[in-house]
């Protein structure tokens, strides 16, 4: 344990917590009419925290405190950057949407930030209970956010589904944790890894599987994915965006830590990796195949994000610096790619009150910018150069092949090419269909900024991935 300055390592978390509370208070105190300023407030404070976190990433010192209960390494900070960026973009893109909410506008941002805080805890947590707490903080905030449209039956249905399934899964996760605690007498990942021992007893096996299930649920790994599409479809679009981008990334942050430290004990690797390979393969295949016949944009993105989870799993299984680097890199560009798409989706939802693909018809005519952004984002998700997605996939699969998992690379590449099919059918609707009678969708202000920004980042990273790659490498190395 190096000497650390409590303030420096926890500043972002504290700041977010405070901010969230302030917003909550404002939401309660200030009359509904005078809440114009909330969004800018959120944005700028997030910006500040993000800036600090970035500085922290490059110049902060490694630290682990409370006996390794909470880590402050570049890995964690990298993910904090990711979460903050995601939150920032979501807030930016959701301004108009939130304005149109009938009630409870104030709490929206507060909850968003609470979720962010939970994610940051997950990223930093080095101990199972902490992980659980962070996870629940995130999830519970999401229960509320998903069901935010109180008058919309679909929204609340999504909420209750998410709640029941999420609670069940976390119960299972928790049971696993309790078993591990029983087996090793500790919940510190490091010590658990030390004591879990080489061979698998039925109990430890059960614990491992439960852990896997609990986290797999969060990253919507097939067959734990079924909740995803429903919730994505029902939730308010900005929430869906945040759910798709950040919560998944947070779950991955945890998974990587847990996997690399505990699950990856000697006995695990041979079988467990095979198992994970199979799961990853199934995830890619199922996600992409089901996405093909979708007619609802958010649902389509949900399935595509399931497939993306499969790609990311490949990187973890490779369990090499290269692999983790790939995961980190991909998670980051995934934020921007998805954010672009969801920003457009939010816009359409806001202007046309729908997220059916057919409602994108003739978007080329109605809003060229939105069309271009959407196209770029989808193609980046599909991994078409020169967009960032291509480099990301390249990192992931080359890492896997480097470990000798060739088959998974075949599946991955072929599947990602198949995914082009449904991405392009969205593009086709936007470019080809006339979209008679649909309103123009002018893009202004924050959301316009979001779109342009995400697109530029996507293209820029695709053309010159080196800087982000360097960050990812640094973060990945801090784990090993």
């Amino acid at each position, binding site marked *: 344990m190096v000497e650390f300055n409590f303030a420096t390592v926890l500043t972002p978390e504290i700041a977010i917590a405070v901010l969230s509370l302030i917003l909550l208070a404002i939401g309660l105190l200030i009359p509904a009419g005078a809440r114009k300023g909330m969004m800018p407030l959120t944005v700028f404070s997030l910006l500040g925290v993000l800036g600090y976190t970035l500085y922290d990433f490059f110049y902060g010192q490694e630290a682990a405190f409370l006996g390794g209960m909470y880590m402050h390494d570049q890995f964690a900070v990298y993910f904090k950057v990711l979460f903050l960026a995601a939150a920032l973009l979501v807030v930016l893109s959701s301004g108009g949407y939130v304005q149109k909410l009938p009630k409870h506008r104030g709490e929206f941002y507060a909850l968003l930030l609470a979720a962010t805080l939970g994610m940051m805890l997950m990223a930093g947590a080095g101990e199972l209970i902490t992980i659980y707490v962070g996870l629940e903080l995130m999830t519970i905030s999401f229960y509320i956010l998903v069901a935010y449209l109180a008058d919309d039956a679909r929204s609340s249905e999504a909420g209750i589904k998410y709640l029941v399934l999420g609670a069940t899964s976390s119960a299972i996760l928790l049971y696993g944790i309790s078993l591990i605690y029983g087996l090793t007498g500790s919940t510190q990942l490091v010590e658990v890894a030390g004591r879990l021992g080489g061979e698998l007893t039925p109990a430890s096996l059960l614990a491992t599987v439960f852990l896997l299930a609990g986290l797999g649920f969060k990253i919507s790994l097939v067959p734990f994915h079924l909740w995803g599409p429903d919730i994505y479809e029902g939730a308010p679009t900005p929430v869906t965006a945040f759910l798709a981008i950040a919560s998944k990334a947070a779950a991955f942050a945890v998974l990587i830590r847990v996997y690399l430290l505990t699950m990856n004990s000697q006995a695990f690797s041979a079988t467990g990796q095979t198992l994970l390979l199979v799961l990853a393969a199934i995830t890619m295949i199922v996600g992409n195949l089901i996405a093909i016949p979708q007619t609802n944009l958010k649902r389509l993105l949900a399935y595509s994000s399931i497939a993306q989870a499969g790609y990311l799993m490949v990187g973890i299984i490779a369990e090499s610096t290269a692999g983790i680097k790939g995961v980190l890199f991909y998670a980051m560009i995934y934020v921007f790619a998805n954010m672009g798409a969801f920003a457009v989706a939010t816009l359409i939802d806001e202007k046309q009150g729908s997220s059916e693909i057919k409602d994108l018809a003739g978007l*080329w005519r109605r809003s060229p910018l939105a069309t271009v952004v959407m196209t770029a984002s989808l193609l980046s998700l599909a991994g078409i150069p*020169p967009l960032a997605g291509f480099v990301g996939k390249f990192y992931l699969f080359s890492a896997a092949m480097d470990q000798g998992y060739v088959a998974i690379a075949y599946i991955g*590449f072929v599947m990602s090419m*198949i995914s082009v099919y449904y991405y392009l059918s969205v593009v086709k609707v936007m470019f080809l269909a006339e979209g008679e009678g649909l309103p123009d969708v002018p893009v202004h202000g924050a959301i316009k900024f979001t779109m342009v920004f995400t697109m530029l980042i996507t293209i820029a990273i695709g053309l010159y991935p080196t800087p982000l*790659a360097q960050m990812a490498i640094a973060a990945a190395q801090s784990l090993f």
Partner: protein
Amino acid sequence: MSALPTVESMSMLLPFTILAPLVAMLLIVFLPKEETKTIKIVSAMGMLVSLVLSLYAFLTYQWAEGGMQFTLTIPWVPDLGVNLALGVDGLSLPMLLLTNLIGFASIYASWNIDKRVKEFFILLLILIAGVMGTFIARDLFIFFLFYEIVVIPIYIMVVIWGSTKRVTKEYAAMKLTIYLLIGSAFLLVGMVALYLAAGANGNPTFMFDQLAARQDLYSPAFQKVAFALMIIGFGSLISMFPFHSWSPDGYAGAPTAVSMIHAGVLKKIGGYGLIRLGIFVLPVGAKFWAPYIATLAVVSVLYAAFIALAQKDLKYVVGYSSVSHMGYVIIAIAALNPTAVTGAVGMMFAHGVMAALFFSMIGFIYEKSHTRNIADLGGLAHQMPRLAIGFVIAGMASLGLPGTVNFITEFTIFMGVINVFPVHAVLGIAGIIFTAVYILRTIANVLFGPRRSEWDHLTDIRGPELVPLVLFGFVIFFAGIFPNVLLGMIDTGVTSSGLAKVLETVSQAKMGGLF
């Protein structure tokens, strides 16, 4: 030659060549979409610049030195070992020139576009730049990057400006795109595998020459597998039987310019890749697969030629004929000897020019008469003599008439192949008969015969529309009458690349099984 600037000082030539269309594209982005005339002129200017530049490169290329010239190397993604490495040699320079010729002409071939002009030319210029990039890339990663850049613009162009005949344009576009992308997925696996194998000694690289230099790192088994992947990827791109079925439908659905570029240069990337990557880097694998490839090639030649006989739609005729002609390129590559490879590259150039001319002429017929059905046309030589000339030139080039560049390249290919695969060669050469049959039938039924009053309203091609005819006609005959200009250039590429030596060593290599 001596008066001209030296190669070192010219390292920015290629970047400018590829930037010209992109700059034009950016200009167009900021032009109002009503300014269609300006848009067209701007894009024409952009292409003219890069055409002139590539011509300059073609003329100032030092034959004596050979090898890669006008090189430029910038480290790009250090952790992957990717370099932004550009350069051209005798193999890629003709293809670059071809790209620019066709790109330039395609602008004029689509002069009469009136629907969403701005978007069309933006996409077209991106497409051309992408194709250019693949040929000037000296780095596999960059090569692949550029190759996949072109896929999406094509999709959008086909979907918006395409035409629905036997198959809907949506179907054609999606088929074209997904087919090629899945092919490229296998290619990608092979590429990564190659990259990892070459990086085994610690410093990973994507440079073609490096990859080729590290032969000792690739086991024969590896080479076989990797080359098989290349064949799937590049083979489907160059529309080798049985991976060809995207190409006739695709061309039929695509707008003229896309058909020109796709049939003219894009599918040549397959052949180019097979040579650059397949033969130079994986000679042992190439040797192993050569017989099978040769067989498939001959099948594509005859099979496609026969099918072309049964076609009713002009574009399908040319589509299948291009499959058939690519068969010659493939068999030449399979022959694995310098002469054949020279012929292959020459043939790619020749066929590119020919196909582009053919498609542009068909495009004019279609946009004036709104039909491509051979039965509905006829006697067009009465109303459109100039177009008829272009059509006949294309046809004669396609059936390999001496005096056109296509003849001498085909002859070179046969010369290279006949020793290696005599039987295949004889069968393949038999293809020229059927080619003659369907080409002559098409010409006769479309152009000749009694005057048809319903086509009297058609106006002959004139003004900008003449550019493709003049340009390609000139190239076809000039290169046909002075073949050294083209084949000599390619020859320097083949010899300076030391291909002969590589193949020599391979031919000694004991492969077991077939050899």
